[in-house]
């Protein structure tokens, strides 16, 4: 994990048109974003394209970044997920697919340091404490890009129930991860 303050400084340089700063941002975040995109899109070519689009988008929209709305990393993840969700919806992949984790095994091993084990442990613990239906709603939205309406159709639960599960689940996660 990079420190948000350092990312902010790098992004300031990106705003001024410094391509090296964008490369630095790419060096810091691309491997995590790529893993996320592989998991969501399950297609290497799509993940690579969306990763490119994400950083080109970040280059063009650097001035729109507002620190008051989250860290640079969260902003990049928002861009990447938004583009991945668009692609999933365009693809018609609205039903939950079988996880094709072998895609991850085919890709190159990570270069920039070990994963954040502490963050992983906290996340697993936090997810483990969520009621199963809240966890499922969040996972369907996060990994499969389903909207709340689509989750409702997928699970057969009323839309209002799905909305409540998403809201309570994320708020609970925020509390657990902050604690």
């Amino acid at each position, binding site marked *: 994990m990079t420190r948000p303050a350092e990312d902010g400084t790098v992004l300031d340089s990106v705003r001024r048109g410094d391509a090296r700063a964008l490369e630095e941002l790419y060096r810091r975040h691309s491997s995590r974003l790529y893993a996320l995109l592989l998991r969501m899109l399950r297609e290497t070519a799509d993940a690579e394209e969306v990763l490119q689009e994400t950083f*080109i988008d970040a280059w063009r929209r650097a001035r*729109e970044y507002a620190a008051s709305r989250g860290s640079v990393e969260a902003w990049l993840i928002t861009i990447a997920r938004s583009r991945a969700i668009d692609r999933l919806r365009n693809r018609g992949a609205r039903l939950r697919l079988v996880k094709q984790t072998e895609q991850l095994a085919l890709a190159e091993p990570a270069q920039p340091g070990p994963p954040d084990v502490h963050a992983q442990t906290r996340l697993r613990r936090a997810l483990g404490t969520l009621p199963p239906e809240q966890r499922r709603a969040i996972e369907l939205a996060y990994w499969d890009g389903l909207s709340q309406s689509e989750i409702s159709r997928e699970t057969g639960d009323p839309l209002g129930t799905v909305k409540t599960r998403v809201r309570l689940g994320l708020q609970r996660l925020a509390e657990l991860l902050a604690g």
Partner: protein
Amino acid sequence: MTHQEFLDQVDAYALGALEPAEARVLEQHLASEGPHPLCEAALARARETVATLAADLKPVSPPPGVWEGIARVIAQGQEPAPRAPQAREPVPPTPREPARAPRRIPAWTYGLAAAAVVTLVVAGVQVRGARQSAAMASASAAECAKELAEARIDALRKEDALQLLVEPGTQLVSLKATPDAHGPLAQSSGVVIFNARGRALFLGKSFPGQPTRDYELWLIRGGNTIAAGLLSPGPDGRVFADVRPEVLTGGRPQNFAVSIEQKGGERDAPKGPVIFLGAVAAP
């Protein structure tokens, strides 16, 4: 869209679980309302939580060709674009941007403004443009001090709310309008930022002034109503109030409510109409 409606949907928005049309409404709210500490803090919190969901993944280095493709695009002379008029991610205006319409300043800020004037004079701060005349200099200094005081109050409010929001265990309690919220009150909204450790803030918007009555916040615990303080809207209808800390020490409340009471409020139970009510979610 009200701030409260934004807060109700911000988690789904950050998760990407809204339909495109729904997401656009939230983005328009952010763009049209300008900087709003509570909405922005809630969005930041939700985005950070969503970002953390990827922490479980093992990083995977993308092939070199990915960066090469990006480098080719940006080498074509495309500088980062200036903000589009309908940017999806509006940022708070900077001091260099064109001046906005004058904002109304709550009456109670003038005391702080006066203090700021004294501070400026004592510190020997020179006001730019004050050379034209003594009268103009005086007016400029006062205007400057008011702006400073207002900015400081806004900053303190934001800082206070943000600080509370990021504390572990903090909850947002949405207060919903009851059928007794007639007329202009139907446009009002309120939220309690509540932490079980004993801190709570009430933030309200579009509260019409009540010349002969007071808004009163209530906490409901175990079937008992506990007066939690009077709410005084500013001239702009906004309310920012600390909940009396002593009422938070008796255990987790079940509800918060707002009523309209006679001047000075009631001590034991609301006698006037209850216009807002919100439940504290179970831990």
